[in-house]
């Protein structure tokens, strides 16, 4: 080709060439490039191109909502709520919708792996959206894996064997609990970040103190007229968000009755406070005072003798300490006193303080003023699930600290981890990761390559929830006792195996009392043995004469539930006569800002690896794909900060750098950071994104053993750096328009 051959000529010739090849290849039917593989054996009820629907249970959190999953040609393509399930009545939250992004996540553990602690479980690359993050190959087979588990069971003393579980299906928890009672291994411990931020232990303990029995209170928001919520963020993640959201819709239902009111006491406006008719930006730590003051004022308005529980509080003092005007308190007390259906709910950050138990007790006692125990729109004990003798709450962080200490001291020789990611979720000060050094063998059953699996010697992946058998006890949110059932909706995508099957097989191999503890052929047989007793119970949604038919219905309807309201009425004879401590919370640390970590409603504890959950805008700030710190605009101005300025947050336990989001609905003396991001593993979409606020948390507890996660004070330091946040509401940061030159 000579130099005279111009670019224009080249384009002419190239054009002819392109046209020719287009003629030659473009006319053929596209079919030439498509191959179709029919089923070898198609299930009878299946047709090509026709969807098949399976009922199962959502495993994105512990609530246990029923799902109906649409499948087509053997692939799950959409999750919907199960309309029959009394807990969610056909509805789902965003995390339930995105469960398919877990099933088809590009980074999963693909088979059993013998693994060097700290080694990666997938390769890293630069760009999570363009590059391949190849998963580690499986390097052992399942026979060896089962043998490894059997050896571990045989080799150590029962007391040196421990199971740590999380959003594990309840049937597996029951299996391990049975194994524990019959062989003497350490009883399984259950933990989850959501229960930590919900302060479940505090709520249960307060109920026990007040009502004399342990259980998880149920708050009938839907039947109430006025709801006072002290920190309970029940529209986002608290306990059973789908069910409580339905309750909220009931509260608002205008046709039936007068539109119900919601008053939220919170230092930072959550979605729940955003929906409230009134948001009271209470000074953190004074919730107990305010609850008691409202109670006293309400009782005084009604007249009559003041009971002991409310006699010690001075409303003026409570008003000045909480930063709420006394007139406001009086107005609220009047509203509470005059309503025909008032309800007070304690929860979340209000309980995660040094005086959390006192707050919970004070707020629960406030319900005595409304006399709503066991009445519509009032406080109940949640109905116990069908095969549940008593409410078993997840471990509090204090209990986890003790457990961690046992690990560090070498008292546990082999640790099995399933469905929980303590390396990521527990506060860094507990040093869980370091404590694993004291454990000889860590065996993880993780489905995803999470931080805890990274610290394991073996990873024996369980199926994803949609590939699994099981059942989930619904501990709260439904008036009826509900056992949500799971069944595989698709065949396993990778070389994973059900942990229950592995344990049953390993127990047989280990022989002795292990073999006799789990005398089952497989997981399904075990499941049947647990579900069979329900056949003889009355008032079931369905009944069947034999176990096979019963199990078929159990799968078809997605579980078993009673048709009767089984919420228990708390015993409240003495409730007014207790003396309640009207104390303020103490705050750890030096700084000038109250620190409120909250669970991201879209990402929560396990959503960070699901790309569509990452791309859902946070309901209050509309931020996507990252972590931010919320600072009141007035405070930000005083500090000379604007949106996207990176600040360093320093607590007594650690420090974090993250960008500022000026949030108009937060107290000027408070900052808030969402929990959910900051992973160092967990797949391409989670890793290296945002920060983890648990790094800032100190090891302070309330009297019930829950972490005082909202009981810290922190400092803010400027770094001079910028990091634009992706926000649905504005593109200012990324385009660099107006950066640092607002107004």
């Amino acid at each position, binding site marked *: 080709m000579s130099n005279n051959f111009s670019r224009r000529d080249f384009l002419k010739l190239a054009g002819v060439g392109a046209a020719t090849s287009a003629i*030659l*290849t473009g006319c053929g*039917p596209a079919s030439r490039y498509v191959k*179709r*593989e029919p089923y*070898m054996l198609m299930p009878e009820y299946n*047709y*090509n*191109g026709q969807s098949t629907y399976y009922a199962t249970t959502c495993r994105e959190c512990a609530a246990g909502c029923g799902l109906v999953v649409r499948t087509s040609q053997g692939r799950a393509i959409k999750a919907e709520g199960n309309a029959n399930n009394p807990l969610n009545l056909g509805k789902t939250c965003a995390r339930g919708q995105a469960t398919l992004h877990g099933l088809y996540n590009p980074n999963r553990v693909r088979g059993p792996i013998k693994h060097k602690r700290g080694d990666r479980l997938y390769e890293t690359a630069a760009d999570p959206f363009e590059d391949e993050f190849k998963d580690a190959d499986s390097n052992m087979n399942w026979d060896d894996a089962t043998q490894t588990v059997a050896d571990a069971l045989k080799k150590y003393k029962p007391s040196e064997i421990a199971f740590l579980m999380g959003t594990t299906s309840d049937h597996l928890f029951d299996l391990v609990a049975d194994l524990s009672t019959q062989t003497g291994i350490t009883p399984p411990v259950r933990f989850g970040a959501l229960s930590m931020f919900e302060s479940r232990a505090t709520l249960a303990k307060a109920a026990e103190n007040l009502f004399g029995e342990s259980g998880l209170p149920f708050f009938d928001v839907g039947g109430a007229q006025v709801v006072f919520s002290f920190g309970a963020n029940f529209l986002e993640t608290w306990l059973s968000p789908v069910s409580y959201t339905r309750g909220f819709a009931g509260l608002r239902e205008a046709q039936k009755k007068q539109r119900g009111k919601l008053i939220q006491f919170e230092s930072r406006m959550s979605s729940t406070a955003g929906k409230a008719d009134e948001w009271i930006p209470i000074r953190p730590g004074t919730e107990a005072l305010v609850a008691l003051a409202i109670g006293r004022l309400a009782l005084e308005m009604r007249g009559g003798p003041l009971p002991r529980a409310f006699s010690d509080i001075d409303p003026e003092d409570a008003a000045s300490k909480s930063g709420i005007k006394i007139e406001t308190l009086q107005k609220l007390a009047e509203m509470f006193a005059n309503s025909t259906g008032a309800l007070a709910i304690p929860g979340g950050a209000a309980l995660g303080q040094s005086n959390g138990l006192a707050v919970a007790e004070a707020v629960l006692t406030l319900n005595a003023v409304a006399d709503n125990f066991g009445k519509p729109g009032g406080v109940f004990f949640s109905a116990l699930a069908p095969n549940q003798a008593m409410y078993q709450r997840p471990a509090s962080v204090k209990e986890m600290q003790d457990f961690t200490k046992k690990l560090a001291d070498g008292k546990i020789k082999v640790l099995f981890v399933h469905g929980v990611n303590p390396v990521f979720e527990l506060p860094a000060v507990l040093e869980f990761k370091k404590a694993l050094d004291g454990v000889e063998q860590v065996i993880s059953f993780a489905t995803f390559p999470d931080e805890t699996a990274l610290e394991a010697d073996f990873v024996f992946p369980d199926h994803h929830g949609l590939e699994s058998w099981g059942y989930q006890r619904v501990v709260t949110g439904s008036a009826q006792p509900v056992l949500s059932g799971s069944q595989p909706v698709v065949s396993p995508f990778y070389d994973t195996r059900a942990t229950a099957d592995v344990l049953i097989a390993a127990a047989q191999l280990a022989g002795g009392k292990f073999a006799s503890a789990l005398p089952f052929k497989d997981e399904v047989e075990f499941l049947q043995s647990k579900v069979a007793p329900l056949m003889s119970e009355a008032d079931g949604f369905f009944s069947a004469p034999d176990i096979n038919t019963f199990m078929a219905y159990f799968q078809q309807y997605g579980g078993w539930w009673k048709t009767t309201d089984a919420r228990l009425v708390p015993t409240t004879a003495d409730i007014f006569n207790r003396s309640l401590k009207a104390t303020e919370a103490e705050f750890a640390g030096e700084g000038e800002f109250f620190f409120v970590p909250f669970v991201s409603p879209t990402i929560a504890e396990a959503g960070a690896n699901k790309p569509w959950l990452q791309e859902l805008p946070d309901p209050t700030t509309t931020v996507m794909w990252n972590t931010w710190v919320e600072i009141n605009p007035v405070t930000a101005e005083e500090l000379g900060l604007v949106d996207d300025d990176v600040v360093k947050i320093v607590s007594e336990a650690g420090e974090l750098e993250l960008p500022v989001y000026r949030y108009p609905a937060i107290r000027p003396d408070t900052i808030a950071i969402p929990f959910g991001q900051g992973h160092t593993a967990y797949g391409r979409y989670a890793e290296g994104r945002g920060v983890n606020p648990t790094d800032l948390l100190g090891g302070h507890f309330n009297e019930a053993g829950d972490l005082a996660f909202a009981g810290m004070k922190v400092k803010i330091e400027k770094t001079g750096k910028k990091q634009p946040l992706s926000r649905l509401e504005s593109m200012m940061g990324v385009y660099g328009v107006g950066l640092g030159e607002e107004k």
Partner: protein
Amino acid sequence: MIKRLFDWLKQPLGLIAVGIALLTLFSLAAYGINYTQQAPAQPVQFPHTTHVGFGIQCLYCHPGAAKGPAAGIPTEAKCWGCHNQIAKTETSLLLAPLKQSVESRTPLEWVPVAQVPDFVQFNHRAHIAAGQNCENCHGDMSKLTVAENPQVFNMGFCLACHKKVAGENHELLVKLTDCGTCHY
């Protein structure tokens, strides 16, 4: 350079050369088009004519057509349901791939011939429900051995029929010529 090339092309030898080049190009294109329009190779040289000849209904093997969007290709289990009772299956060379597939439990990979273009959502059931017969679009299968497509399924083909079916019925015409009926 390019000018000298054009000068050379204008002399008789050049014109012949251009002629030969065009002819080659044309025959290649003709061959290519012809090639792409032939029925693709299938794993089994499936004789539709024989099966239809036995009186087997289309919907017996392609039941999806009456139930949903895709007619579907029968499973090997369905083929085998009849063929394992037929002695010829053991010996026939034609049926060897089927036998092998069933024994090794690996599905046969068929190449679909009746394809609509991209961006079209086609639904068999609606057409069956409207009283259309399979052969209206797929031709007379009783005369075909290996499946091939009697016509290219393009928008003209679809719309011609839709308009014919609608006839004077204005409401139906609106529905059947609406973009959203097929494209979403």
